[in-house]
């Protein structure tokens, strides 16, 4: 007999595949209890969940640690949530779990977070921590309204937002790169500054009555009418994707562009080099300061786009401190997504979904649904603590660089 060097195989599947299957089973344990399946029997979720946990343990003992843990977690959550769902009245279930509006709301809530997270990624990948994303977003939100209102077109609003966000980021860049300030202090200062400047000029320009209702808004284009002609899933697809805002599509585009730029181009290699080991990058002739300036200003522009989406894309007005912590959730998404564009996007979708769900759950659960909004932060806390797969920042992130 020849001893097998590989991990034992069972019906041709590796431990990893089994674990992924376990994760899917765990999700399914919850899903069977929801519309459109709506299994009311209480034994369905535990059955599927135990299968998921079993798959998780099986793959855990065969080397696939991280997916294994995820499968176990998915199984436990699936059982718990599934049983909860079978207990709920089907009227409530049909109201809360209306998939098409939920997904569409998920994209709406995830878009500002995606912009902020992408911005934060460029900044942090180049080695500058950007706590000021929140402030840059708020600035973008205000100047988008101001530009769209005074110059009469949403396009100029977006241009104003990008310029304002870039300028604010330039302050952060100058203080934290040239003056080598503590980047956390500087970022906090940026947040305060944005709060003060936007509030001040908001009241100065618009007074107590707030922004006018007739501001030019970013249109919900392109309308994908053809989606509804697709058989079977057409109606669902049209409801989710048919009427998304232009800035949401632009966020998808930026996501792909960011991924390509950071991981497939020399520019991205330079950004990452500067963020991981600035001295080495400096030695081979990369301008550490130049790259960092560009990355931080770009991050401010992206965050401002997220703010512009909030104000002239989604709400159509501006209120004092209207971003209400979305910049921080974007930062959380970035960390949860392990400083990668698609990871951050997935996290933003998850966080956006939990926000959308929290709004829907308000009907049956009342006020307790707000606890759901804390979920992104709890997950991020778990992620940075490294309980399930550790998030590791770029090595030189947060450390000013001195030229020799």
């Amino acid at each position, binding site marked *: 007999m020849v001893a097998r060097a590989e991990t034992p195989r069972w019906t041709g599947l590796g431990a990893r595949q089994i674990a992924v299957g376990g994760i899917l089973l765990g999700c399914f344990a919850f899903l069977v209890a929801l519309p459109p399946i709506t299994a009311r029997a209480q034994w369905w979720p535990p059955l599927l969940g135990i299968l998921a946990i079993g798959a998780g343990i099986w793959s855990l003992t065969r080397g696939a640690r991280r997916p294994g843990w995820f499968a176990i977690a998915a199984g436990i959550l699936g059982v718990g949530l599934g049983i909860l769902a079978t207990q709920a009245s089907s009227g409530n279930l049909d109201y809360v779990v209306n998939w098409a509006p939920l997904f569409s709301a998920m994209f709406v809530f995830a878009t500002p977070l995606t912009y902020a997270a992408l911005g934060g990624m460029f900044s942090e990948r180049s080695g500058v921590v950007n706590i000021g994303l929140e402030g840059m977003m708020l600035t973008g939100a205000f100047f988008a309204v101001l530009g769209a209102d005074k110059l009469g077109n949403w396009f100029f609003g977006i241009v104003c937002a990008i310029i304002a966000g870039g300028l604010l980021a330039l302050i952060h860049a100058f203080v934290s790169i040239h003056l080598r300030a503590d980047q956390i202090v*500087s970022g906090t200062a940026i947040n305060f500054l944005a709060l003060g400047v936007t509030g001040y000029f908001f009241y100065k320009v618009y007074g107590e009555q707030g922004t006018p209702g007739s501001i030019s808004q970013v249109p919900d284009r392109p309308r994908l009418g053809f989606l509804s002609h697709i058989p079977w899933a057409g109606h669902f697809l049209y409801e989710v994707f048919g009427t998304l805002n232009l800035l949401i599509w632009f966020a998808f585009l930026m996501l792909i562009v960011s991924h390509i730029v950071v991981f497939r181009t020399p520019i991205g290699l330079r950004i990452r080099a500067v963020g991981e080991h600035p001295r080495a990058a400096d030695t081979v002739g990369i301008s550490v300061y130049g790259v960092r300036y560009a990355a931080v200003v770009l991050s401010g522009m992206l965050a401002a786009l997220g703010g512009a989406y909030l104000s002239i894309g989604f709400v159509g007005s501006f209120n004092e401190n209207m971003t209400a912590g979305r910049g921080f959730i974007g930062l959380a998404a970035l960390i949860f997504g392990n400083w990668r564009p698609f990871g951050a996007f997935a996290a933003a979708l998850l966080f956006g979904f939990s926000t959308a769900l929290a709004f829907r759950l308000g009907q049956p659960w009342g006020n307790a649904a707000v*606890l759901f909004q804390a979920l992104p932060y709890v997950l991020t806390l778990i992620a940075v603590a490294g309980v399930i797969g550790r998030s590791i920042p770029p*090595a030189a992130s947060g450390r000013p660089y001195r030229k020799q």
Partner: protein
Amino acid sequence: MTDVPPDLDLEPREPEPLAASPTAYAPSVAERLAILQRAGGVIVPVMTAIFAFLMGGIVVAATGHNPLKVYKGIISGTGLPWFVHFGHHHIDIPFTHHQVFFWWDTSVANNDAYNLQQMLIIATTLTFTGLAVAFAFRCGLFNIGGQGQYLIGVITGLWIGTKFSGMGHLPHILFAVVVASLAGALWAAIAGFLKATTGAHEVISTIMLNWIAYWIGSWVFGQGGPLQNSFNKSLPVSNDVVPSAKLWVIWGNPALQALHIGFLVALAALVAFWFTLNRTTLGYEVRAVGFNPEAARYGGISVAKNYVVAMAVAGMFAGLAGVMDMLGYQYRFGVLDVQTSQIGFIGIAVALLGRNKAIGIGLSALLFASLLYGTSTRTLDPSVFPPTLASNLTWMIQALVLLFIGADVLILYVWNARRKVLRAPRAPRPQPTGSS
């Protein structure tokens, strides 16, 4: 300008980086503190504050207001003019019915005295939240979680303060204060524990904890929440603190908001902060870890333990701020307060402007409290400057203070340039050796 001028001799001499350690690239938190110390006492903070107010004034002037009038209006609302009105007045001797001569009018009718009390109430809170940032800072930790720890203090303080109405006055207050400060300590210690065991950066974990506390607060005070008003079920506000848990008033009319005993506790906390850091083993270890964790570890100090302890003490201060506010003068808290309260964040500016020292924190708490109260709708005359603008001006000034504090190198450069002009005829100083 491509780099900071090389003649800036106040920079720490950076050792050549061993291997590729990225930590060697920049001064640490504690090294920055040492730079400021060498720069000579109060100069940097004072210059920072002056710059910030100057630039705030420029914004005011640029938008068509007279900055001098605006600042005068703000100061007149802080109650500080009370000190310059001397007269022939009397003051009660505590616990007796005797009165003695006093220069200032302490009577309830005096409006300036009332404003001063309000300003000092805010200064009390800011002292605590400033200490919360500063204590962690001295251990090399950046505690941005003051706001969350404050909210946890508020929630626990209100939980005990609105219930247990059968207890005696002193036990009830002690119970509430002790439990709330412990809750704040535990909340902050989560971040310290994560840093100590997994290396999770405290800035990220405290931001996350802030928002978790925010949503917990929105839940407990919201409709149907466990601490929501039991008399009016549509009101997303807590019950009032019961009389047996209200703090003693030391100055002013208890029917209005009056200065409560928390002010004295804050003063005591400043002394305790100084004493703990400078005269105890705990403080020595905390500062040692703050200056150089590796050296401290080499010297036999448990870095992990000190991270947890420093965060816990910091959280205790923030929790105290929350419970003192509730039992002292606010007596209730609502969802709207959870959303708008920023007092924990202002603590960052207080601590940094006060250079993380006891006296500095006390003084900068007074400065920021004056700014906050002087720009509130209650005191600022709208014809001089609209309070909505003024409160945003406050944010700008705070931001500028933080920016300039962060950019200490710039301030030191300006200061140095001035000194160089004064000393121009003298012999040039020896140029620094080593890395430039």
